[in-house]
């Protein structure tokens, strides 16, 4: 092989390897952050609703720290190459999306929109061709949210909160209606979407148990 060509190939390879290494470093950091975050949020299952806001206050700074990762990635990824590298961090990003949407749900009972999640995580519109929050990643995060809420429905009953399952049920049904509008390909998103019905079934069973025993209103009485 002629040396000029070989040189060119090697320098291109070196550049790619360098980018990959740098991204890896950031992803390790990102991973640590999201794992801490998910670790804190795991405690929602044993936290009474009146203490929830304290827990969220604890999680907030960790979520905010993810912005540093986003900015660092935007620095590393060359223009137009978002899709080339995004798979490296999409797992961590999806947990971050999950955490952000879960925190918003616990805070206001609503679904945090994609642009709002992107803003929370520090994505800037002008970085669009380098780092951005793709629809796919947002949807994966939302599915994880539903998975987690089905667990919360069960555990909130154990903690004596009988209203939460009903709220969750309404919320999740809205989300499911949204997902039903999509023409999903036979990919992981599709498979995870298919799993949503089991979460809904689980939540329905909790709601059924709670309303059958007339537990929901009694929770209100307790609060009085």
């Amino acid at each position, binding site marked *: *092989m002629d040396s000029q060509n070989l040189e060119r190939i090697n320098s291109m390879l070196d550049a790619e390897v360098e980018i990959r290494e740098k991204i890896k470093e950031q992803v390790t950091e990102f991973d640590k952050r999201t794992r801490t975050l998910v670790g804190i949020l795991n405690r929602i299952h044993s936290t009474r609703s009146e203490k929830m806001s304290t827990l969220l206050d604890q999680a907030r700074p960790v979520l905010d720290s993810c912005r540093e990762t986003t900015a660092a990635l935007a620095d590393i990824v060359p223009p137009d190459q978002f899709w080339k590298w995004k798979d490296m961090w999409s797992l961590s990003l999806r947990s971050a999306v999950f955490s952000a949407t879960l925190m918003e749900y616990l805070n206001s009972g*609503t679904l*945090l929109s994609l642009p709002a999640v992107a803003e929370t995580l520090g994505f800037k519109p002008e970085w669009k061709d380098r780092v951005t929050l793709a629809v796919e990643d947002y949807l994966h995060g939302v599915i994880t949210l539903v998975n987690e809420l089905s667990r919360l429905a069960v555990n909130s009953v154990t903690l004596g909160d009988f209203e939460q399952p009903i709220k969750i049920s309404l919320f999740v049904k809205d989300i499911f209606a949204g997902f039903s509008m*999509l023409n999903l390909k036979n990919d992981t998103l599709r498979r995870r979407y298919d799993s949503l019905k089991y979460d809904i079934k689980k939540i329905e069973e909790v709601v059924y148990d709670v309303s059958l025993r007339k537990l929901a209103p009694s929770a209100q009485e307790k609060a009085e």
Partner: protein
Amino acid sequence: MTLPPTLNSRDTILAVFDHFREELDDHNDRRERLIKSSRDVTNLSKKVIFLLHRTMTEDVGEADDRTLGSRAASRARGKLKEIQSLFAGMRPELSGDRYARYQRNVSPGLQEYIEALSFAHYLEHRALISYEEVQRSLCDDDGTPYFPLSLEDYLLGLSDLTGELMRFAIASISRRGGRQKANDVCHFVRDYFEGLTPYFRDLRKKQAVTGQSLEKIEDAAYAVAVRTSEFDLPSEMLDDLVAQMVSRTADRSGFGDESGRRKPRETDYMDADD
């Protein structure tokens, strides 16, 4: 979008998912279109490769290798142009950050094209086509690339080239001057094979196949070397001896000159194609 940051009713959620659907459909449709185009490219490229093999093994008596090579390359040129115009047609679908997104959908065709292009290049110039030259073949008249050629596709395309070279070497070994040709190919492939470190996952897989191809050529070259050493004759004379023998048999049986050689060649073909 002029939607609130949090979605608190079914209607707003549905409106947002409606938007997602449009985006996902757009993406999937584009991907399908590109996969189709890529398939067309693969198809045409395979035809070019067959055309090249055919031209190189045509029986044209006096024509030497170089003439055959440039004839093959010039015949291929028209078809390669056709493929290049397919890539030109894909250009708007691959602009900006889209190329990185759909690269893997276009790769199969692109690699097959690089295989055909580099094979034609080898036959004409006896040299490896450079990254620059491949990229230049994928540019418009102003020299602006249709899309940035990825190193991965370039290297993987070249890996496929070694399979073609193996076929070419084995097919020509029974011909006049074929042993020398096989040796040349052997050196060429070895050069390439040793020049690259397998960086990409796919490349590592293909490197294994390249290794097998190289081994097949080496075995053929070895057999020839061993057998030639039994006769203390210059290689041209051996060629003539063999040619005489073959033509006599052909006259008698009416078979083509390669009847005895056909089989191993075809199995080689199948091996290397998976």
